């Protein structure tokens, strides 16, 4: 080491590091900064991951607009809106959770996390109801997909309100693409929710042991970022899939 460069006066030389500071960081600041930034970068990869699906959606909506109209009539705006509310609320409770952690309010933090957890489960529950309906009507692509509701809308009471004109077979077939994109996008989103809920469960457990109310809240904060990101994806999925193609 004789020929090494000048040596810094390590500012923390005399201090004990907090137990959660990892050895290779010079300071807690640095650690928090670094992990937060890493989380953001991870979210960038998520944006690009969903980006591929959004691209496909835009292309096919543009090509097969009537099919997308007919397909979106099959979605239930009520469930969709309700789910949006549920998810936004869960984002809110999550944000509050971060605040509680910042304020070192252990009980409130646990409460917020539990609420987020429940709302997350609720979201998935509603999604299941919707999926089940698609399954029963043979609107799951690849699994005995049926175009009956589209070539003969009169046979499908659920969409009577829209007075759809029957689609010709060639266009009706393309509703399968719509439903595929519906399942791929909401499915990917649901997968992220499931992962998030798993982590939430773990966090609730740790939060009750007081892990996040010591001033070291990186984990809660970064998870919050993830959760809000998943919320944002839904904020776009909801209008794209449910709303914008209602009027043919």
């Amino acid at each position: 080491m004789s020929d090494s460069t000048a040596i810094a006066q390590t500012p923390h030389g005399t201090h004990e590091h907090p137990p959660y500071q990892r050895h290779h960081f010079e300071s807690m600041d640095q650690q928090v900064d670094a992990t937060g930034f890493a989380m953001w970068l991870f979210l960038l990869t998520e944006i690009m991951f969903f980006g591929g699906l959004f691209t496909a959606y835009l292309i096919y909506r543009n090509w097969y607009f009537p099919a997308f109209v007919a397909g979106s009539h099959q979605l239930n705006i009520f469930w969709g809106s309700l789910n949006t509310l549920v998810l936004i609320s869960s984002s809110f409770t999550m944000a509050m959770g971060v605040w509680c952690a910042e304020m070192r309010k252990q009980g409130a933090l646990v409460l917020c996390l539990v609420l987020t957890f429940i709302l997350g489960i609720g979201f998935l529950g509603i999604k299941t109801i919707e999926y089940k309906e698609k399954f029963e009507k043979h609107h799951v692509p690849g699994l005995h997909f049926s175009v009956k509701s589209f070539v003969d809308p009169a046979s499908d009471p659920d969409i009577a309100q829209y007075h759809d004109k029957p689609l010709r077979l060639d266009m009706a077939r393309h509703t399968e693409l719509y439903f595929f994109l519906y399942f791929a996008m909401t499915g990917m989103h649901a997968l992220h929710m499931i992962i998030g809920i798993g982590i939430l469960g773990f966090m609730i457990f740790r939060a009750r042991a007081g892990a996040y109310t010591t001033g070291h809240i990186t984990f809660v904060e970064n998870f919050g970022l993830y959760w809000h990101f998943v919320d944002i994806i839904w904020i776009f999925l909801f209008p794209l899939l449910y709303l914008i193609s209602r009027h043919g």
Partner: protein
Amino acid sequence: MSSTIVSLPDQSTARIPKTNFITKENGLLSWLLTSDHKRIAILYLISITFFFFIGGAMAGLIRLELLTPQSDLMATDTYNKVFTMHGVIMIFLFLVPSVPATLGNFLIPLMLGAKDLALPKVNLLSWYLYVVGGIMVLYTMVSGGVDTGWTFTTPLSTHYLNTNVISTGLAIFVAGFSSIFTGLNFIVTIHKMRAPGMTWFRMPLFVWAHYAASILMVLGTPVLAIAIVLVLLERTVGIGVFDPTKGGDPLLFQHLFWFYSHPAVYIMILPGMGVISEVISTFSRKRVFGYTAVAFSSVAIAVFGFFVWEHHMFIMGVSNYSMLVFSLLTMLVAVPSAIKIFNWTFTLYKGSITFETPMLYAFGFMGLFTIGGLTGVFLASSGTDIHLTETYFIVAHFHFVMVGGMLMAFLSGIHFWWPKITGRMYPEKISQLAALITFIGFNFTFFPQFILGTLGMPRRYAAYPPEFQILNVFSTAGATILGVGYLLPILYLTWSLKYGEIAGNNPWQATGLEWQIQSPPLTENFIEIPIMDHDAYDYEWLERQNQKEKEVTSVG
């Protein structure tokens, strides 16, 4: 004046430091559970070398088959599997992680004056993901292979093949996440872990190059991931996004695939360019000419690299008008590479040059990459692309940039930092010979392929018209020489682990922070975090430093 800069400690007294990151702990588990970036780099080095030789064996089979015009060594579908595995292994399991995951992993914290990468556990996770991906590829190979070509063109890969597309797809998906996490880790480290005084413009160009490559890894790879997921879904449930019979567009797959895979070629070259900057500077004892230009050209390549992917699809039915845009942008992205080449050239000007092995490889890089890059421009010009695309001209182009460029850079870097990694020198004479053999063998192998391509020989052909045989024989002969060129380093580098000369801290008298500490470094890299008080490549500072040290020793 001697013609070498190597300054080794007195071999009779020199010792490898007793405590270093290799000797710190023992046992397999201490390696498999390590979070030390240097150990992970070594894990990577071993695993990618393993896969390089598997990929190389595949290349050997390809060349053997192409020795004769008929497909006599193997059936056509076997041949198809062989080149697919060759491409998949070489790209995803060798070249993408080659420099970044080994040298980058090892050096970035050292060069920045940090104790480790920002996320050591994620770093280990990357390696495990890589291993999982690798095992899945091996599984694919033993269970019958896959014959999609490394480009997985739909609808061929989705509906017309019954080989192991799924396991390969998953393997690439997993290996992709390994690459994403490596890139993410580098970006965070470079932003947040720099030592005091290490400003952006004091960073070595190696770090700049990795920063640029990491951006591509983080933003590009997820798109490949989703493209693969869609292919797998299409194969399993048959959903039709890429299926023309269901109204999907098979070209969409290629858009998504190349959105990653074009930037990926820069993932594959930028870290190599970083190596070249270090090597050229060190062996000409000069600061890199136009430091800022070289640094920014890396970033420019990364940014513009995202705008050009369609040049892989010019004749595949894309719109003529968007072809114009993409062709133009491809021309723009070629310029920063030219800037780099010329800056390196002018780094030599008024330098004080020596010709150790890393420098020889670096020269090889400059010549071969220039050829490879310029022939890339042939392909970027839409008119000539019509004639040259899908022929051996492309095969030659990308081997020139990937093998002649990146692989040369990788070998250059491995030799350059070998003393730092292991504490011992490699044997100089034989390695110079190996560099020469590689260079000659390389040109023999791939130069004829430019002519073959111009003559129209299509790529991915197990059998070809007899008039192309002669050039193919040349190519195969060259590959044999090349194979020897690659086997040699493995042998003598292994030998040097035990018998190499002790290198000391700074055998090349290089300026980087990594050279100012012991070799092999301590697990925590720096006992105390250094303060960077000079620019990168400041040889005068090094001189002063050496002077000081002499005074200290003579006084003491």
